């Protein structure tokens, strides 16, 4: 087993069963449907997708908060048993989680010191080490001087500071992987970049793996090396960031890029070429390629019947689209 791999997913599927009147099986919500990728140590990866594309469920699956229906997930070469609490404790030690809404993710009745102490107690870090670690973590996220912040409660911190506190908590146990679920979507534009830069710096300093989930493509290029585009529970395009931004291959990625405005005055008179429609239902996804009902370049008789496998038109650039057969 390659020890350099922090995380390796092979055909992971997470389905949620739907029930009618509580016991009659009524189909599945296919929230994650056949996702495969490897993450090396010290690599930052972004998963981009619209809401409802399954990106949060994918994260929850990695964290062991949602059960895998099918497929294989290896953490540092270890296959974990999600019913075994020792395995789960190990997993949660190794994976830090940065939530979307920092205010919702920090208990309002605990002060900063207590919030940071909690994971150390749960994971039985020796008592004499705890204070030191808390201070280091606060230093790391530049909540300094640490003494000023220790006694504060979350509501006394600004949005950016709260999010940095959440990052500090994720770092506390020195994990090998951090997963961040839209860590800056609740923050103001002027502090977003600060938090992203901070996470980037920490990632480099500690050689961490980071999985950053977002719907905001424009922040991607400042953050990660590789980007995955998710549409309707599948990763439709996997490549490095410049590939996504400069040479998107999948029609969905092209559309997504087209939709994002840059702050330019010309936008006022310009209409965007966006086909109408909504992402498909994950209970009954369309046959064939899931994007074909909205796709401007669909091939009749192929895209609407057969699901495209993964093609590699350029080295390291994977895309699930029949156009690149």
């Amino acid at each position: 087993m390659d020890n350099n791999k922090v995380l390796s997913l092979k055909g992971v599927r997470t389905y949620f069963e739907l029930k009618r009147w509580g016991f009659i099986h009524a189909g599945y919500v296919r929230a994650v449907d056949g996702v495969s990728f490897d993450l090396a140590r010290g690599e930052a990866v972004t998963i981009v997708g619209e809401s409802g594309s399954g990106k949060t469920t994918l994260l929850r699956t990695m964290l062991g908060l949602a059960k895998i229906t099918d497929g294989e997930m290896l953490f540092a070469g270890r296959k974990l048993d999600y019913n075994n609490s020792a395995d789960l404790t190990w997993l949660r030690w190794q994976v830090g989680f940065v939530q979307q809404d920092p205010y919702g993710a920090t208990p309002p009745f605990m002060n900063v010191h207590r919030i940071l102490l909690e994971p150390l107690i749960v994971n039985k870090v020796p008592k004499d080490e705890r204070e030191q670690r808390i201070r280091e973590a606060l230093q790391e996220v530049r909540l300094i001087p640490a003494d000023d912040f220790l006694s504060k409660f979350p509501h006394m911190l600004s949005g950016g500071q709260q999010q940095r506190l959440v990052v500090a908590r994720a770092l506390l146990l020195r994990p090998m992987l951090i997963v961040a679920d839209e860590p800056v979507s609740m923050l103001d534009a002027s502090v977003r970049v600060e938090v992203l830069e901070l996470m980037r710096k920490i990632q480099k300093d500690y050689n961490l793996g980071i999985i950053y989930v977002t719907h905001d493509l424009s922040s991607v290029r400042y953050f990660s090396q590789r980007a995955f585009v998710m549409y309707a529970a599948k990763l439709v395009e996997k490549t490095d960031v410049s590939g996504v931004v400069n040479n998107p291959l999948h029609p969905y990625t092209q559309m997504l890029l087209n939709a994002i405005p840059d702050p330019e005055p010309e936008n006022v008179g310009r209409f965007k070429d966006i086909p109408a429609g909504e992402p498909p239902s994950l209970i009954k996804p369309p046959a064939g390629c899931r994007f074909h009902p909205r796709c401007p370049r669909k091939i009749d008789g192929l895209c609407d019947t057969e699901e495209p496998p993964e093609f590699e038109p350029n080295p390291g650039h994977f895309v699930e689209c029949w156009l690149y057969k």
Partner: protein
Amino acid sequence: MRRQKQAVVERGRSPERTEGPVLKVEDLTLYFRATVGVVQAVEKVSFELARGRSLTIVGESGCGKTSLAKAILRLLPRNVHTYEGRVFLNGVDVMKFGEERFRREVRWTKMSMVSQAAMNALNPVLKVGHQVAEPLLLDHRMGRKDAYEEARRVFGIVGIPIAFMERYAFELSGGMRQRAIIAMSLITNPDVIVLDEPTSALDVLTQANIMNTLKKIKQELGLSFMLITHDIATSSELADEVLCMYAGQLVEHSDGQRFYREPLHPYSQKLMASVPTLRIDRKPEFIPGQPPSLLNPPKGCRFAARCHKRFERCDEEPPLFEHGEDTVKCWLYEEG
């Protein structure tokens, strides 16, 4: 009786399409009373909006953007401390109107609003078509049949299939719900529509579609828009003019063509620099520090503490200086 009803509708439908700005705000001030003191949410904001133009208001959260919109529409909570200034709509000072007259003649007849998180603003137990027609049904402004006919018309404008009129809110996707809310704001043929973060809860693609619709409405109906957003990139989509707010005050009012290229106020410059861009290769910066508390704002320029161009004059509060056709609240432009 019937004739009387019609008269109300006619009056609501802006008979006086006068020349000059459709909306003019002078020294609008809104303070809230809180347990800890007085929150100076909006302080002496003045601007004009011409017919058929769109104005975007940008700024960080907590800078008073939404309060400004609510002050213009007089949608105020109970804890208002000070509410003064003048708001002219088609040249008429509507601040002098009593609450009932304001409700009948201004709010949702000449000025309507698409509120923040409009996704959840629909009533779950009413059919969408009825909700959209409701502003016309209130006060017996119009008969049911006519009102529904109008609703069908605005559904066409915003691009919702007519069949959706019979549906409930939960049967609509987020984008469709947002369109329904826009339809609701259009139904009384207002002169001004205030859009408060209309797309912030939507996906990128849906967002682009809604923006296309808004641009189409603006071109075809000649409405004036006021778009409030903290998303600078999106704001550029509807920006004939830009109003930048900081800590309750207007700091810059510029032409959109110029604002996105070379903003004047140091805060606007920093704000623009903090926006990550997709196509232009530029490293975004962040603004150090945080905005001042509106409970007890600093004496001089409110941005001085975070400003990279600060000098002695900044201890005094700058007035609004003219700079070409734009106005900016910064001592750097004293010479004009």
